[in-house]
């Protein structure tokens, strides 16, 4: 069975029509993981045995005519989402041996439906980057260019190690790797999916979403995990049908192109690819409207001020006392905390903790944190202004084809994805072209709050007419 290009919807049909069993599928994916993951390093923890058991249970449910949308669907979870009894490291040494005594709400929902967990995938420590260069477990290779690194959940879908995956995005930590790996990913509206059990990076930005081969699969996946959760009081009670606009005509749809995303910050090849996709939308009947969101100029500093502040506070609990890494041979409480944190956190994590503490300190709170909050409010109102006359916003996902290696440039890499996260808006990224070097280029469609259906419908329309290129790694084997 060639599972390489299988979509969630095809698997659903195959399982429901008894063309294959879930057990067979899991064996096939496990085999492929065995073949390729040594090179790719997508996984931190594999759960092959548990997966087989889940698969057999799913087969029983399906045979009993008791299948939900995600029953028997094999998938992977980013390792910052807590799984009861299964190691959850968040990509760091601090939680290298952490086994949560509880499931994240998304995991409970997947388990209720009988989805099958193949393993937990690699990410930067606490989800702070887009490259896994800051993972304690080494970096994951991009199947399009194994000299370039990416995160496990996107590389895995791109390489056909699993058809869909669930991860989290904060300022672009899932959307950008998805663009780089030529897959589709959604970061829903903040509050759409419960964050309970997601190991916090920056709480007012963190949002669980998905990675898949196309937008339609994402809509189904999202339907299985979204919705209010009493354990996350920031989660929304709004209902949604994420597939509602799939196949709808986009005639008359107003697509905003904010000029700030088409300036010098963004690589020319990327701009051209996204603008050519915009042209195609225009040909399908949409109206392109050039707009401006001036506060984007301050987005990066404002984002890092708020995100690092929250990050520093969220990570304070890792003190070596209750869980996680604990330094040895210590003789005082202060030393225990200091040494545990010094020895277990990576450099970038420490840098962000320091920056976060700095902006929250009483001497700089007003000059930094309050101003950043003001920028965030301004940006929210500017986005609202755009949505008063437009339906969606179209932007590049990434500013560069290949990931920059130094931290300073790296901070700019979320230039296109951080602003929409600051405004808590839903964004979907899908591949809109390839660079001369053969690397995928992604475009992001951002919608009104809680209007995931529109951006999913729009991404799906584009994907229908787009010829995807498979990564060399897959074509070659």
């Amino acid at each position: 069975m060639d599972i390489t290009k299988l979509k969630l919807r095809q698997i659903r049909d195959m399982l429901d029509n008894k063309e294959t069993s879930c057990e067979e599928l899991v064996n096939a994916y496990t085999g492929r993981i065995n073949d390729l993951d040594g090179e790719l390093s997508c996984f931190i923890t594999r759960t092959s045995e548990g997966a087989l058991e889940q698969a057999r249970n799913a087969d029983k449910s399906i045979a009993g005519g008791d299948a939900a949308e995600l029953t028997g669907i094999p998938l992977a979870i980013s390792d910052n989402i807590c799984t009861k009894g299964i190691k959850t490291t968040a990509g760091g040494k601090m939680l290298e041996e952490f086994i949560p005594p509880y499931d994240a709400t998304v995991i409970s929902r997947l388990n209720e439906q009988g989805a099958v967990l193949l393993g937990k995938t690699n990410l930067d420590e606490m989800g702070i980057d887009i490259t896994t260069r800051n993972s304690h477990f080494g970096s994951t290779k991009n199947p399009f260019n194994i000299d370039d690194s990416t995160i496990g959940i996107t590389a895995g879908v791109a390489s056909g190690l699993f058809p869909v995956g669930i991860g989290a995005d904060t300022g672009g930590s899932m959307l950008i790797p998805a663009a780089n790996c030529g897959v589709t990913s959604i970061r829903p509206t903040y509050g759409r999916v419960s964050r309970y059990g997601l190991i916090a990076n920056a709480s007012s930005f963190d949002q669980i979403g998905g990675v898949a081969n196309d937008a339609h699969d994402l809509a189904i996946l999202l339907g299985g995990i979204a919705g209010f959760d009493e354990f996350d009081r920031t989660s929304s009670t709004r209902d949604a049908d994420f597939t509602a606009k799939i196949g709808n005509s986009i005639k008359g749809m107003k697509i905003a192109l904010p000029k700030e995303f088409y300036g010098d910050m963004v690589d020319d090849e990327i701009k051209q690819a996204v603008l050519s996709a915009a042209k195609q939308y225009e040909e399908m009947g949409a109206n392109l409207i050039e707009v401006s969101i001036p506060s984007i100029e301050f987005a990066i500093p404002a984002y890092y001020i708020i995100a690092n502040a929250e990050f520093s506070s969220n990570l304070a609990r890792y003190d070596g006392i209750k869980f996680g890494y604990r330094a040895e041979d210590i003789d005082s409480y202060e030393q225990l905390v200091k040494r545990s944190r010094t020895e277990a956190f990576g450099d970038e994590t420490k840098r962000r903790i320091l920056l976060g503490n700095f902006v929250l300190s009483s001497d700089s709170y007003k000059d930094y944190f309050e101003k950043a909050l003001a920028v965030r409010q301004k940006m929210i109102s500017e986005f609202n202004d755009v949505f008063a006359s437009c339906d969606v916003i179209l932007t590049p996902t990434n500013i560069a084809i290949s990931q920059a290696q130094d931290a300073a440039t790296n901070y700019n890499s979320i230039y296109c994805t951080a602003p929409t996260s600051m405004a808590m808006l839903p964004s979907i990224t899908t591949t809109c072209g390839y660079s001369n070097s053969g690397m995928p280029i992604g475009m992001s469609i951002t919608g009104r709050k809680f209007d995931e259906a529109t951006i999913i419908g729009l991404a799906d329309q584009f994907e229908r007419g787009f010829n995807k290129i498979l990564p060399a790694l897959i074509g070659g084997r």
Partner: protein
Amino acid sequence: MFIPVIGLEVHAELLTDSKIFCGCSAEFGGDHNTRCCPGCAGFPGTLPMLNKRAVEYAIRAGFTMNCDINKLTYWDRKNYFYPDLPTAYQISQLYLPLCVNGEVEINVDGQNSKKIRIHQIHLEEDAGKLVHDDFNNVSLADYNRGGIPLIEIVTEPDFSNAEEVKEFIEKISLLLQYAGVCECKMEQGQLRADVNISLMRESDTQLGTRAEIKNLNSIKSITRAIEYEIQRQTKILQSGEKVVQETRRFNENRGTTSSLRSKVDAHDYRYFPDPDIPAVTITQTELDGIKAQLPELPDARLERYIDEYKLTPINARILIADRAISDFFDEAVKSYNKPKSISDFIIVELLRRINLGELDANDIPFSAAEFARLVQAADEQKIAKNNAKTTLRYMIETGDSLDKVAEENGFWIKEDREKLISTIDKILAENENVVAEYLAGEVKVFGYLMGQCTKALRGVCTPQSIKKELEDKLEKLK
């Protein structure tokens, strides 16, 4: 020559069933770490779920202290490392606390009243506890207390001496008990205070440098700490030196305070709004609903007892000092409208039993109406005074009803006239000599005759009717 300027921060644990941000029991005690969950132990990925009841209780407390309630409120993180604080930040309120601008009236020197301004009351979580094992030289963390809802009542620096502070603590304890939000058992840590003290000269226009004494958990400690600190600072200022701004701790055994940390080492708590807890908006209707749940407060009751019921201020104060007793009193008066009799019987008899530990004011085994019936029976001499006291004791001891106790012990006085007359006749006949003495003018022997009759007629007639009949009979013999 120096005027002390004192302000308080009082922490009160709220009486909610569950903790402020998770479903764990908020009850006091329990084996170590049996009343905690991943949430209140700060495990990765867990999130706070605000307890609505805690918000209501804090608002109730605010109403009793005449505060304005902020209809939009949110929570902030107060960041600091300490092993009893699982997340290394306490969820508290700094920027927009629930209750602001209140005032509480206290009595000073028994007569005058003084208004203490409340700066704010905010709602926050308690921390866990450290258990030190000096034998094995380890400290262990117990998170049972972590996440119990607390209100912190912050006053303006309106106190001038320890006596006023004591009055205030007693007053707010009473208010919180009436509001039903805190039992204020200081020995269980339900009420704890931090005291800020500075001294100034009468001619000074600015406050002096203050010291903060942390974590005082009895009125006695508070009083002693304040008195010591006033002495200490006076000495420093008199010798021309300066008071250092610092946090101090009170040493219970020595009765002294000592430095904990100076301003230089003071924590920078890096407060910022907690992104995990959505801001709460409270409507006027909700506020009205919470207000409607409040009982009549102690000051209003005191006034009513004195003005309407004509109780002495001392007795009125005793009654209102415990809401359960005051409620019981009011209920009893509803069935027997003799407030003074009820009040006396409560203060002399019922409270004595409570103080002896024979029963709990919150768990009296009979109704106020039944108690009122007993008082009435005693008033109307249907039960002899002494027997009424005994009846109460038996009712407490056995849980039996008034009727059962009085019946079984023959306490009911039946007013059997026939037996009264025949018994008195019989006694007079048996004591001819004594009667003769009486008739000869030796009136003090009346007591002896009366005693004989009362003894023989216990439970048959009231002493009054015995006395009247005996007097009549003797008169006729003259």
